C-alpha cells in the first residue's frame, strides 16, 4: 500500500448494553483502494459502518479521514468531507424521482443552498450540477429511468439509485452496506460491473460490507473478516479466504 491512507480507524469499540458489538477494531483504507468487510451475521459489520459514518458514537477509538479527525463530526459534515454511503435497508426519498435523488445529493454536497436564493427564485440547479447528475445517470445506466419516482423501481435499480446518490458530490470514499442483499444473480452481476466502472472512472475508494463472496472477490483488493466484534483476519482476498480459522468461523457457518 503505497498510496496515502484515506480513512484510518483505530481501536473502535462499541458496546450495546451487555453486548460488545465491536472490540478494538482497526481498519484503514488507502486512497482509491477497495476494502471488503465480511463476517457472519451479528459480527458487527453494520455497527462498524455506523461508527465510521457517525450514526453511532463509538465508546472508544478514533476515526481519521484524510488526515483529519472526524470523531465528533455529525453525519452530514462527514458526507460533505467526501464520504458517501448506502444502506442495508434501502433508504430512498420516497416519492421523488431518480434524477431528483441525485440532484438533492449533488446540491447538498455542494452546500450551496440558501433560503434567500429560493425566495429570489434563484434556487434552481446550476448547469454544472445538472451536468454531473447526467454523468452519474449515464454511468449507472439509469438515464431511461431518470424521471421515474423511486417507489416504482425494482430493488436492483433502487440499489443503483442509492449508489448514484452516494456518488454525487464526488466522494473520495464510498461505504456500501450489503449492496447485493435481496438482489438476484443478474442484478448482482450488473452491480459488480457498474461498481468496477465507477471505480475506474472516478478512482473512488470503497469499503464494502457484503455476504456475496463473488461480488467481494470481483471488487475488493483487501479483506477484513469480523467475528464477534473482533478482526479475525485481514489481508489479500485469496490468502484471507484460505485461512482455516476464517473458513471455520465464516464459511463454515454458512455451509
Amino acid at each position: 500500500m503505497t498510496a496515502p491512507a484515506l480513512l484510518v480507524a483505530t481501536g473502535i469499540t462499541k458496546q450495546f448494553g451487555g453486548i460488545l458489538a465491536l472490540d478494538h477494531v482497526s481498519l484503514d483504507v488507502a486512497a482509491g483502494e477497495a476494502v471488503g468487510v465480511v463476517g457472519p451475521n451479528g459480527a458487527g459489520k453494520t455497527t462498524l459502518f455506523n461508527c465510521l459514518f457517525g450514526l453511532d458514537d463509538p465508546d472508544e477509538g478514533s476515526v481519521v479521514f484524510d488526515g483529519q479527525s472526524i470523531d465528533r463530526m455529525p453525519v452530514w459534515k462527514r458526507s460533505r468531507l467526501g464520504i458517501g454511503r448506502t444502506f442495508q435497508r434501502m433508504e430512498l426519498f420516497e416519492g421523488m424521482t431518480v434524477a431528483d435523488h441525485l440532484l438533492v445529493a449533488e446540491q447538498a454536497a455542494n452546500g450551496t443552498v440558501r433560503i434567500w436564493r429560493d425566495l429570489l427564485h434563484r434556487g434552481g440547479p446550476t448547469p454544472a450540477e445538472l451536468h454531473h447528475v447526467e454523468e452519474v445517470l449515464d454511468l449507472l445506466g439509469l438515464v431511461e429511468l431518470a424521471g421515474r419516482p423511486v417507489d416504482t423501481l425494482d430493488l436492483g435499480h433502487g440499489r443503483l439509485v442509492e449508489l448514484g446518490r452516494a456518488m454525487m458530490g464526488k466522494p473520495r470514499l464510498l461505504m456500501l452496506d450489503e449492496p447485493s442483499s435481496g438482489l438476484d444473480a443478474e442484478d448482482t452481476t450488473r452491480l459488480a460491473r457498474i461498481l468496477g466502472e465507477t471505480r475506474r472512472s472516478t478512482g473512488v475508494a470503497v469499503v464494502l460490507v457484503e455476504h456475496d463472496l463473488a461480488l467481494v472477490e470481483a471488487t475488493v483488493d483487501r479483506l477484513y473478516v469480523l467475528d464477534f466484534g473482533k478482526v479475525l483476519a485481514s489481508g489479500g482476498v485469496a490468502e484471507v479466504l484460505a485461512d482455516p480459522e476464517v473458513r471455520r468461523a465464516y464459511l463454515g457457518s454458512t455451509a
Partner: protein
Amino acid sequence: MSQFFNYAVPGVPFGCVFALMSVGLVLTYKASGVFNLAFGAQAFVSALAYVSLVQDGWPRWAATVIAVAVIGPIVGIVLDRLLFRRIRTASPLVKLVPSLGLLVALPQVALIIAGSTPTIPPPAIVGDAQHVYLHLGSVPLSGLELSITVSTIVVVAVLVALFRFTPVGLEMRAVVESPRMTELAGINAGRISAFAWILSSMMAALAGVLLSPLYSQLDPQNFTVLLVWGVAGAVIGRFASLPLALLGGLGLGVAQQVVAGYLPAGVIANGLRPSLPFVVLLVFLPLARQRQIDDPLSGCDPPSSAVERGITGYRSATTVAASEGSVHTVGVWHQRLDALPGGRMTGILTRRPTATFSWVVAVVAVASALTWVPPDWLLTMNQGVAFAVIFLSLTLLTGMSGQISLCQATFAGLGGFMAGQLANHFGLPVVLGMVAGGLLAGALGVLVAVPTLRLAGLPLALATLAFALLADNILFPNSWIGNGASGVTVPRPSAGPVSFAAAKPFFVLSLGVLAVAAGIVKLVGDGTMGRYLSAVRGSELAANSVGIDVYRLRILVFALSAALAGVGGALFGSLEGSLSANDFGYQISAVLLVVVAIVGLGSITGAVVAGVVYTTLQVAVTSLPTRFAGLVAVLFGLATLSYTRHPEGFLDVLSGRVQSVVAERRARRLPGGPTGSGRRPSPPGDEATRDTDPVAEGAG
C-alpha cells in the same frame, strides 16, 4: 418540612387523576401505536354522562358505574374499531389529526346527545365533596379528595393484580413490550390491543368523573388541560413504562401544588403552574426518544401502504403516465427533472386541470367582494384571507416539511400582539408592525425549535402543545404582550395618503399580504429547499447522509412558518381592531391543524380554502341556533373520520376525481387514439395509488 407537607398533600388527588390519564395514554400508545389525545374528550363524555345521570335522580354509584364501566369502554371500542385500528402504522400526522379532531368534536357531540349542559355542580362519587372527614397532620381532607385518592388506589391495585396474575395481563404486558414479538408468539395482538383500549378508556372515564367535582361547571376545556398533564406524565414514563407514568402523573399533581404554594402569588406563580407540563416535556422528551428503539423488532415493520405513508403534497401529487414512459408532475412542490431521450434535462411542471377552475372561483370571489357583497360577508371573507395566511404557515411546516406544530395559533397571537403594541406604544405603522410581528414570531420559533426539533413527529407535536399552553399562561397575560383579558388594540394601517381603514381597501391589502405569503411558500417549495424537505420526509437518515443538515433545515422552516403565522395573526388583529388571548388560545392551534389537514396540506389552494371554510364555519356556529351549531361539530367529527382514508385532504381527492373524469372524456373523444384508459394517470391520492408495483413494494 411541614409546610411542604401542607402543600403536597392537596396535590395528591390531582396527581391521582393525572396518573390515571398518563397510564391510559401509555397503555394505548404501546398496545395500539396511537397516542390518543382524544382521551381528554373521552374523560369529558363520561363526566357529562355521570353528572347528567345524577341530575336526573340516579344514585351516584349507579351513575358512576354507567359512566365509567359502560359509556367509557363503548366510546373507546367504537373509536378503536372505526378509526385507530386502521392507522396503526400510519405517519405521525395521520395518527395525530384524528385524535385532535375528536378532542374538539367529541365533547360537542356528547353535549348534543345529552340535550343540555347539567346545571348542578358535579358531585363526588362518594361522600360529601366539601365535607372534611379527617385531618392528615394539619391538612384537612375533604370527601372529594378522599374519594379521588381511594378510587385511584383501588384502580391501581386492580390493574396490578390484572397484570401480575391473569393470562390477559401477561399478554398485555407482552404487547406493551413489543406488539410484533407477541404476534410472532401466536397471540392475537389485535384482541389484546382492543382490551387495552377498553381498560384505558375506563381510566380516562374514571379520571373525568373524579375530576369533574373540582370545577363548579362542566367545561370541555378543563378536560383538555387534564389531558396535557396526563401527556406530561406519559412522557415521564417515556411513553413506555406504566409504573413510571403512574408516578409521573402523581408527581406532577403534587409538584403543581407545591410550586403554587411556595411562589408568591402573581403572574409568574399563576403562570408557572400550568406551564409545568412544558418544562417536564422539554426535560423528558429527549429521554423518551432514546427508549423507542428498545423494541427488538422495531424497524421490522412492514412498509405502510402508500396512501397512509404519504403525508401530503409530493406523493399524492405524483402521477405516472405509464403510456409514454415519462412522468408528469401535477403537484406544485417542485419541478421534476425529466431526462429526455437526447439526455437534455428540462423542467416540466404540468398544471392541474382544476387550477384554472380555482383561479376563476378566486377572481369571481374577489370581484364580488369588492362590488355587491354585504359588509358582514366581506368581513367573513377577509377573516378567511387572514386565516389563509396562518394556514399557509402549516402548509409550509406540516405539508412540506412533515413537522407537526400545535402552537401555530400562539405564533399568530404573538405576531398580532406585537403589531398592536408597537403601534400603540411607539407609533409604528401597522404594516411595519405586521412585519415586526412576523419577525418576532419567527425569532420565538427559533427559540422553540432549538430544544424541540431534535425530536420529530409525535414528541415535537407534544412539545409545541406544551409551549402553546405556556404562552397562554405566561406570555399572553403579560401587559407587554397580550395584556390578559382586555387584549390589545391593533389599528388599521394607512400608508401616507392611502388609508386601509375601510373594509374594501383593507380587503385588498389582505389579499396582497396573502399573495406575498403564498409566493414565499411557493418559491420555497419549488426551490431547493422544497427538494431538500421532500428528501428529509422520504428518509431523514439518507438526507443526513448526503450532506443535508437536517436539524438546521428544520429550524429554518419552523422559524419561517412561525413568521408567516405571526403575519397572519397581525393581519387578523388589524382586521378585527383588537386581539385578546382567547383569539389564539392553544386549542385553536389544534383546530387549525385539523381543518387544514382535512382540506389539504399539499397546496396553496388548500390553505386558502381552509381559511374560507374555517371562518365560514365559525360564522355558522355563532349565527345558527345552538342546537344546530353542534351539528358543525358533528360534521367536523365526520370529516376527521374520513381523513384517515384520505390523508392528502379532500381538495386533492376532488381534483383527482375531476382529473380522471376529464381524462376519460378525452380518451373517449379520440377515436383510434391511444386506448390506454386503463393506463391513464391514476388520480392522485385515490385508491389507485395504493396499487404500487409489487416489486417496488418488496424493495421497501
